């Protein structure tokens, strides 16, 4: 589990991440080369810098990614929104994650996923967090369990339920 100062850091980082996302987006508009994939990795790098070189060593990779998960989600969602607003004069549109980022029979529609996750968080915040950690943070089952301080089987059960629920919702909202 991340230590208390990590939790505190997470809170203070939150507003900074917004700024970071905005900065990255400005850059993207300037050179038009920053794809979502690169965006995520850039953010990852910057977050690492922000935390300092020893943070990762002290707290471990999983803790770092757990922290990063929220940032990733934030940044991708902002990116998607800015992108759609840009293209369609503020209109609402779904943005797909590029296929290289996730294994994908069909690419994930990011804003739809984000919305669905919000709704899931209303019903069961831990399950939503499990998805966030896995999908946006890349944590595996054990790491999720450790991060959330629950048994492996619990994190597993949370994951399967959340996944099925999200799939169902995503399919229903797309038709």
């Amino acid at each position, binding site marked *: 589990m991340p230590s208390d100062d990590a939790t505190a850091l997470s809170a203070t980082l939150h507003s900074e991440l917004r700024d970071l996302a905005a900065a990255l987006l400005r850059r993207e508009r300037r050179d038009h080369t920053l794809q979502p994939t690169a965006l995520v990795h850039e953010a990852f790098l910057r977050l690492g810098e922000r935390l300092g070189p020893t943070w990762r060593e002290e707290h471990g990779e999983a803790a770092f990614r757990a922290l990063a998960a929220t940032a990733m989600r934030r940044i991708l969602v902002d990116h998607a929104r800015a992108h759609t607003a840009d293209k369609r004069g503020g209109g609402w549109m779904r943005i797909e994650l590029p296929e290289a980022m996730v294994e994908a029979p069909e690419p994930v529609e990011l804003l739809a996923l984000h919305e669905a996750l919000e709704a899931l968080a209303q019903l*069961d915040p831990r399950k939503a967090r499990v998805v966030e950690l896995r999908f946006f943070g890349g944590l595996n089952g054990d790491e999720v369990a450790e991060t959330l301080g629950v048994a492996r089987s619990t994190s597993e059960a949370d994951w399967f339920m959340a996944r099925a629920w999200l799939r169902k919702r995503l399919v229903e909202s797309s038709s």
Partner: protein
Amino acid sequence: MSRTDTPLPGRPAAEPSHGPAELRFQRVAAIFERARMAAASEREDLLLRECALDAELLIEVRSLLAHHDVGVDALDGCVIRPGVGARIGRYRIEGTLGEGGMGTVYRATQLEPVRREVALKVIKLGMDTRQVVRRFEAERQALARLEHTNVAKVLDGGATPDGRPYFVMELVRGSPITQHCDERRIEWRDRVALMVEVCSAVHHAHQRGILHRDLKPSNILVTEADGKAIPKIIDFGVAKALEPGVGMTAASLSTALGHVVGTPDYMSPEQAAGEDVDTRTDVFALGIVLYELLAGVTPVRARSMSGRRTPSPMELRRRLLEDDPPRVSSAIDEERAGARRTTAAALGRALRGEIDWIVLKAIARDPARRYASVAALADDLERLLANEPVAARPPSTGYILAKFARRHTVALVAGLAVVFSLMIGTTVSLFGLRSAQAERDVARDAEREQTRLAAALRGQLFASDVERGRKAARQGNWTEAWQLLYGAIEADPESPHARWALRESAWEQGWIMTHRFDSKVRFARFLPDGQHLFAAETERPPVLLDMLTGEARPLGTGGGADVLEVAVSRDGRYGFTSDTSGLITQWDLVGNEPPKPLVSCHPNRGSCSVLCDPSADVAYAGGRNGVIWRIEYLADPPIVQAIAHSGGVKRLAIAADGMLAVGDDQGGLLLLSLDRQREVRLQPHERSIQSLAFGRAGRLVATGTTGPTIVINDTETGEVVQTVRSKVGTARNLRFGPDDRTLLVLGWWGLHEINLVDGAVTTLIPFGSWRFDVAPDEQTIAMTSADYRMLSIWNIGPDRGGVRGVVPAKSVTSVSAMPNEPFLAAMNRGIAALDERGRPIWHMPVRSARLVVPGPRSPIVAVIGNDRWLRVFDTVNRKSLATSAMPNVRQDSSCVDLVEDRFVAHGTTENAVELIDLKNGSRCEVIPSGPSELLALAISDDGAWLGASFRGDDNRLIRLADGAETTFHGNTTGFAVDFNADSRFMLVGTWRGDLLVHDVQTGELRALVGHSSMVKVVAAHPTDPDLALSMSEDGSVRIWHLGLMREVAMLRPFPRLEWDANSIRSAGWVNAGEGIGIIGIEGELATYSIPMADRVIGQWQATPSINVDVNDP
């Protein structure tokens, strides 16, 4: 905890309020969880029990379970590292092998040019990717030479789409050497023996100038084969590429220091200090591994064991630089001794003394005090095992002096070795070389000589690699062939040797062409002409693709649809598409009718299939809503009617008698007879049907599902006739062979033919694909690639090779390959140009044409008639240029040649050689009367030389300016003559099979060996002076490179049994030298296109970074 960690705004910060929605959700989740864990058979009971009287709850949980059962999808991936199924370059991720300081190691499948399992290491963020890739590229050649059983080959490297470096290595299934030994409680002697093997591998690399720089147990894996432990060293060359260099950011540098280059435990002091490294750095690391293998702990950690605290990296580094390590024998405790089948005391005793010395010598802080090479360390270890005295000595008072002497001895020995190698290369005398100047001269000369030798050696190695690649390809050993040939072309993209070898293999495999699309294309179908294909892209309008030219004609403008299937009407007039929006659209393939939307098969996304009846002007379609539509497409507007209903339609198939098969997404199969009087419903599968095909006789229907099972039912009785375990993965597409005894099955790994009688599987095309279609000739196959971006066309006929055709009519008396058309035929009533398939392009009436002799470059041909008249035609303007009666002309094409449109040389029945100027009709005898039978003649393109071969090894070269004559002999009779394009070489094909190359300027003569029997045709390339081909009675056509003076390709288009190898009538360059045309003894035509092969090679060389969709929508 979890909530303070979920900082998205608007999220409740307190415990979830237990409102009705939340409670309901928890209930659903609880039942879902119980049902998920329950056995499939008990699930339904459990659901009914738990959801008693609450239908809504039941529906919801059932629906969630259905979504759960889908398996793995995008949500299982993650945004910060590739998920299973993701593509990195030409590799597909299959799973994670491990995570280390450097990054993540994946198990992956290389998809092309060969399919194999590899380990793929994606380096963490923070490195300068371009630098890493450049450094890796620089080392790549050297790495390719590492051939050692104990070294896992590094195969490839590059950058991921998001810019992280990756390395591809041979996949090793093993555990770190320390873990391996401890788990099996291997005793110390065997551990030392294992290390000797490791040393030999490292030494092998050192001899090739490659340092490892990051040797540690996790990079020395042990696999077991036949009960024998085999150590494999991984990551050779990786550490060097990852070294911090200029251009790194401060952040990445700190990452590098912390994690990337070397784990502190195994890092030598000079590495930690950032100083230069050499072979002794690897000696140090091996010493530490040996230490750990014996003592169970690394030296820097040996101290802290009592303290029970893991030392920090900083602390480890300090110890490494400052402390003397404790001896191995003193670092042992009982637990670790137990893992070596002994006690601490006994092990300590065993290790005390010599082995302590060896390890201490290997891990000495000062590199000069270590073993000078890994070989020396291995030697000492072997001596130890053999109980011989070792070289390592305990430190003593005489230590410094002794070491000084030793160091100088080493230098002396090294110096001697260099001189020795020079002597072998240059036979330099060592006597009298006393002065420094003389030594420098010798050194400089020797250096030059070494450079020259090295270049020659590299050239030889390169050539031998290419030849090994060609041989491997001929034996069907594609893995090796591709590795060697693509390696060669990457090393030297300009090499004609490698280029031709690749062309040869592309032709050999039956590749006809590859077409790359801008967006997804899932399916293409042949038109009845077998030459055009109808294909639909997702982001562009559908296209008509010409297989011969590679040109794609878009049908209309505008965007595309996400097309799933295409169909073509039986007359080739209309194409049909079904797309993910459920729409069936009709396209005019011939005229300009706008596309007609016909019917919508379902309101939402999902599968959708369309198909044309091959024996009626009717198409059928169906989609997720289960309605089967019949489309009469010739009517205007087309008549569309619903004829039946099934589950969600996944695939359709139609039998020769018009019976329609509908495979649905529940695994059900509906068979509808033509008159719709009979309906049979079968349930061959539990899961969605992926592929479907009728037997040719109509009585069998085969279905494939997700998974390896293919079920064949009898269409009359509905009974299962046969169940085939395909062994090739999910069958994406099926087709019965002509006699229903074989089944073509398309799996992820390629196209296979399964013999239904004995179950034998033959791989026809070794590349995975999505769907395929077979042309009417039953030999040509079009496949969309597994990533949907490419369409490749193959010949899978028994003879494979180039585009095939047949000389059309019986009236044809002879055929030649022609420089500006593919082929030229002499017929009873004229001459005709033929295309690759033998179809006439144009025809010119000529009386009683018997022989046509094309000029070397111009479109001028000489025609010799049965009436012994010689006529010369311009085939472009279709007019006669000259006519001449020649009662004594020899009716033999090898004895006639043309220069431009003016001169004709021909042999006479008296074996004289006559030259005719067609402008003024003047004639002269160049060779008044030959010494024996004239067999062949040629004039050089510049008109300067005439060459002729007579029976009895008599080859004449005559300078036409002054009639000067040279004779040369090849110890065998010449049967074919030509001059290369710049008129420098006279080429003679001989009875023995050699190709004689005679330099007309210098008189130098070379014999190139290749054919095993008589050469009947020699044809120089019309423009490239380096190229010529020869055709022999051994049934092969060989391409020769006159710059390299070697054979670069061999074609054997019509293989026969050995006793009847004479299967080729003629061969030549066609299409302005861009192809090779070969005419078989039975009138078969084969055309090998060079641009087509190069296109294919280029496309496979480029590594597209695209993703593979795992499921069909």
